[in-house]
């Protein structure tokens, strides 16, 4: 720093004058109780009216709230009410003190433009990387969808082509010849064998039907027709079908049935048989020595199906793929159309069962299925009344009235709240079994309200209603934490089904 005393007096004087002028220095002398005693310098520049300084003095005093004015203080770059920036110094002087204000506007302008550039660059970088991420996601998603569509299309074409000729024609021919044989042979001779052939052909036909269903897609194939099932007959049929195959390949085939539930199982018979037959066909095809075992167990209203073999096994990396259609190469040496297991998976899903696969290369494979039996009278369940309180957050009285009627109709108590903030309080204080939010509320949006609830740990079921059917609106609601999203006009059957589903999930 410059040694002012070493300067010639006239230089020192000039320098002092320049600095005082440029800094618009202002000195204020105060009593300990902030009574202004003296004021020197450019008061007007700092927005202080020397005749009525009280307001500005109060603002300066605010700067020292919580701070002891008995010590020197320094507060750089303070923006005061007039918008200008000053450096503020407090100089303690025994009991009383002085405030020194120096203009910092120019320095602030420089610093601000640098800081602004730097901050905006960071913010823009963040926005840019987010936008790029979003674009990348969209592109990937489009790419995936395109691939899926192409695959699905190829699948369907391949399927329809194979089906129409190479499957149906030989089956028809086989049936014709079988009929001839049955007529030619005297009854009693080879009757069992012919019966087995006929059964197998019948199932092949059923399988063909299932393939057609595959071609039709999800739309028409999901219906189940449960009937009482004779498990002993199923087992016997499997033995009749697969024992001869096993003998021909020098394999052991065993089929067992265990039953600890006295009720009669109910399943869609065609589908159940197709599942078992597909699994056994698959096991037979890939087993060259050892055994193939079918174990059925009917317990607790669930059918447990296990098909295990000592075949070639499936490498871990292919295990997920075997359930995909046309998975050529998944099981080495595979020559089949590769549809069997994908059909099994599909049927198990339709029957709301589960399917597991354990396999080790060269050791064998085991498929385990768990299928819930169909209820004896399937429709009563749907109409069963439910209980508890539903909180409806909706500001339109007509709509809330409709919702009230709908929910009371299935046995729920309904409370209606017209504002989101109040609803949040109510929901947190007394969590309802179901919370139904309208997307458009007078205070907060439904999304904001749901987010707030979730952000405070609310875990109950939340259903969002909105007139907006766009995918964006739906995604926003689900991302904010809603469990389901339904659009208006309200489809009451759907509303009821969704409400039941959410209540059942608790």
């Amino acid at each position: 720093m410059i040694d002012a005393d070493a300067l010639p007096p006239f230089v020192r004087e000039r320098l002092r004058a320049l600095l005082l002028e440029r800094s618009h220095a202002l000195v204020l002398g105060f009593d300990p109780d902030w009574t202004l005693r003296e004021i020197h310098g450019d008061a007007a520049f700092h927005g202080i009216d020397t005749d009525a300084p009280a307001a500005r003095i109060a603002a300066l005093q605010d700067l020292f709230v919580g701070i002891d004015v008995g010590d020197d203080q320094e507060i750089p770059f303070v923006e005061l009410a007039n918008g200008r920036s000053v450096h503020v110094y407090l100089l303690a002087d025994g009991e009383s003190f002085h405030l020194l204000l120096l203009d910092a506007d120019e320095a602030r302008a420089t610093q601000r433009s640098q800081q602004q550039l730097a901050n905006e660059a960071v913010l823009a970088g963040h926005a840019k990387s987010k936008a790029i991420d979003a674009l990348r996601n969209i592109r990937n998603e489009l790419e995936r969808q395109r691939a899926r569509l192409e695959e699905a299309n190829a699948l369907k074409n391949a399927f329809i082509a194979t089906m129409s000729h190479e499957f149906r024609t030989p089956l028809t021919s086989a049936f014709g010849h079988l009929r001839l044989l049955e007529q030619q042979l005297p009854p009693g001779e080879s009757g069992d064998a012919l019966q087995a052939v006929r059964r197998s052909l019948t199932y092949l036909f059923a399988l063909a039907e299932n393939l057609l269903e595959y071609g039709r897609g999800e739309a028409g194939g999901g219906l189940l027709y449960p009937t009482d099932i004779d498990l002993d007959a199923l087992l016997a049929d499997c033995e009749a079908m697969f024992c001869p195959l096993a003998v021909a390949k020098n394999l052991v085939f065993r089929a067992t049935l265990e039953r600890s539930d006295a009720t009669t199982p109910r399943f869609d018979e065609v589908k159940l048989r197709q599942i078992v037959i597909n699994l056994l066909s698959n096991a037979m095809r890939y087993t060259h020595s050892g055994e193939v075992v079918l174990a059925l167990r009917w317990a607790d209203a669930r059918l447990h199906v296990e098909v295990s073999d000592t075949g070639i096994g499936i490498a871990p990396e292919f295990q997920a793929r075997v359930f995909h259609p046309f998975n050529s190469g998944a099981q080495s040496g595979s020559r089949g159309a590769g549809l069997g297991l994908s059909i099994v998976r599909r049927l198990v899903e339709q029957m709301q069962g589960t399917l597991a696969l354990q396999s080790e290369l060269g050791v064998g494979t085991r498929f385990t299925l768990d299928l819930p039996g169909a209820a004896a009278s399937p429709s009563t369940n749907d109409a069963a009344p439910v209980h508890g309180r539903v909180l409806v957050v909706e500001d339109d009285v007509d709509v809330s009235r409709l919702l009230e009627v709908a929910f009371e109709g299935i046995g729920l108590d309904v409370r209606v709240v017209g504002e989101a903030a109040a609803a949040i309080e109510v929901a947190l204080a007394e969590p309802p079994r179901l919370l139904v939010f309208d997307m458009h509320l007078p205070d907060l949006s439904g999304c904001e309200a749901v987010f707030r609830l979730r952000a405070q740990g609310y875990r109950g079921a939340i259903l969002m209603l909105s007139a907006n059917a766009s995918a964006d609106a739906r995604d926003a609601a689900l991302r904010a934490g809603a469990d389901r999203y339904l659009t208006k006009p309200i489809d009451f059957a759907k509303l009821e089904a969704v409400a039941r589903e959410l209540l059942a999930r608790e």
Partner: protein
Amino acid sequence: MSAGPFKVCMLGDFGVGKTSLVSRFVRSTFSDKYMTTVGVKVDSKEVARPGRDPTKLVLWDIAGRNAIDSVSANYLRGASALLIVADGTREASLAAALNLLMQARGLLPNAFAVLAINKFDLLDRWEIAPPTLTQLRRAMTVFETSAAAGSGVEEAFAAIVAGLDP
């Protein structure tokens, strides 16, 4: 205890909306335009207190940083409360807020702190998930705020007033 005034410091990374929250609270205004704060801007507001005399808050809107340097440490002196601000659309600003809170706790062990996650009106761009906030709420008072729309702002300052002087 004390009748005030009370010094309240706004702390948070740059651009999170400290200045905007103060303008919303003190003047009920909002601007889209970003003008970064250099140093500090001091405002004040009379606030009502349920069941007692009103008091005055002196609000220190401090330039955004992701850590407390010697300049901001100087600004913090004498503060009774902190409004720590993060921007819900930038996850990194929450980390900065928590870091600032930890550092400030060292300097001001008795100051009462409230966390505001701002820009709630931009919820569809938020990077902070509800479970994170649920976790944070176990440790401190948290508000989702929007200086743009006004939601949560009064509540956050009211919580500060309530926490000042128990």
